[in-house]
């Protein structure tokens, strides 16, 4: 292979990625444009909230509890070396509300609900259901894609808040009930250090952004999947990989913006 070939290959990769990104952006625009049906006939979206949000509850609640409990144990172990085990509340709450809540909940959401959305839309495409819908003069983006997209966008912040709340409870369970950190200072130090706007609202904003990212990637990969068994399985994998990377990258960017001055 000559150097020119290598360069050509590199160029081809870059342009095809860019082309795909542009295509995905256009798709997002179309989804937003055709969201009228999903919002007017909200029953469609409610149904999808059931499949994406409600069915993700168990995994989110249980993981949140365990993450909080681990934070309690590890945080206590470190903090008591410096004699400040009362700050356990701060450590647990801040790490959950600012970072772990939105990020881990979004990662779980991508693998639980995002992959399901991709597989469902991909299979609908493979079995010509989307084509059939189009032939029945019903826009599949409005009828299939937009409700799933909005369901994801609505579910994500709620799931992240539940994850954080469960995590704080888990930290409280381990720190206060099991190890015996003073309950009063656990809560009061937490409340003194966690700011509503700076920490909690920023966490909520993060989870909204992740909700848009994951839902967008999931519906796009499903819609763009090759209509074969192999194509759908690949698209599902791509959803999980791409959205995980997107979540972590976006998290860095958002964190850099939000907590710059502190």
């Amino acid at each position, binding site marked *: 292979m000559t150097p020119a070939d290598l360069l050509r290959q590199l160029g081809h990769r870059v342009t095809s990625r860019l082309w795909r990104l542009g295509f995905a952006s256009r798709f997002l625009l179309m989804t937003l444009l055709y969201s009228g049906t999903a919002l007017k006939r909200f029953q469609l979206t409610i149904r999808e909230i059931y499949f994406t949000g409600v069915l993700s509850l168990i995994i989110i609640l249980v993981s949140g509890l365990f993450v909080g409990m681990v934070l309690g144990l590890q945080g206590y172990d470190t903090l008591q070396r410096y004699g400040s085990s009362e700050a356990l509340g701060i450590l647990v709450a801040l790490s959950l509300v600012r970072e772990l809540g939105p990020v881990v909940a979004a990662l779980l959401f991508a693998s639980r609900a995002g992959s399901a959305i991709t597989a469902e839309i991909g*299979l609908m495409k493979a*079995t*010509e*259901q989307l084509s*059939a819908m*189009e*032939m*029945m*003069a*019903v826009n599949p983006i409005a009828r299939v894609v937009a409700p799933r997209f909005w369901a994801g966008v609505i579910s994500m912040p709620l799931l992240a808040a539940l994850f954080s709340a469960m995590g704080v409870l888990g930290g409280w369970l381990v720190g206060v009930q099991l190890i015996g950190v003073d309950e009063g200072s656990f809560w009061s130090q937490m409340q003194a250090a966690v700011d509503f706007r700076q920490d909690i609202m920023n966490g909520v904003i993060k989870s909204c952004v992740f909700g848009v990212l994951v839902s967008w990637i999931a519906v796009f990969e499903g819609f763009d999947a090759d209509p074969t068994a192999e194509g759908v399985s690949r698209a599902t994998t791509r959803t999980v990989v791409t959205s995980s990377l997107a979540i972590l990258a976006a998290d860095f960017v958002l964190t850099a913006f939000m907590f710059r001055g502190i």
Partner: protein
Amino acid sequence: MSSEPLVQIRDLNFSYDSRAILSGINMVIPRGKIVAIMGLSGCGKTTTLRLVGGQLKPSSGAVRVAGQVVHELDNEGLYAMRRRMGMLFQFGALFTDMSVYDNVAFQMREHTDLPAEMIHDLVLMKLHAVGLRGAHDLMPAELSGGMARRVALARAIALDPLLIMYDEPFAGLDPISLSIVGELIRKLNDALGISSIVVTHDVQESLKIVDYVYFMAGGKIVAEGTAEDIRRSTEPFVHQFVWGEIDGPMNFHYPAAAYGKEMMEQPGKPRRWWA
């Protein structure tokens, strides 16, 4: 107006990535008739259907449905036209997350403001017409292939279309379901006064029900005529196709280099590294 054929296809060309799929297709589908498009897999039959349905745009030429040029319609016009078309997909393409009842009711709910009671009556009527009124509570996964095809047919006639397109309606059916579906196509066509296009490679079954046949090969029309004409045709390709002969103009072998020469060659590199 009514004497004019429902669908007219003029000098239709279509190519995909500069690979010609269809060239110079001329077809006429008169009102109230069933027209079959036959040919081997991959000869452009389904592409023709998609061009009629407006899912693809022709490279040149035009498809006219009820006097309108399909590819010149805007989105709204296209959707308005599609409401007057029904399409039966190869394996039914039923919505797997809805019951049989909801599948048939789908278009009525999307496109009309009919009250729920009237939709209920209409759905049961359509299901009755295909003999599956008792199955309205089932999910598509619980249906056999033939039943799914019939539900899809009920769904296709939900809004009383002018034209129904069938994409391989006989593929993968047992002989009994095959006759049932065949007869349903004929009966619905005559009872509802609609026109039908049947894309198929099942010669014997379709010749029983259709009025006119177009034969396609390699993106061109190679023969046309009534069912009788086709049966009696002496054209070698049509003869081979209708009677299912192995020898004829269509080769069993995919085009290849001379057998002896290829056997002497060194084995080539595998196409994929894992092969």
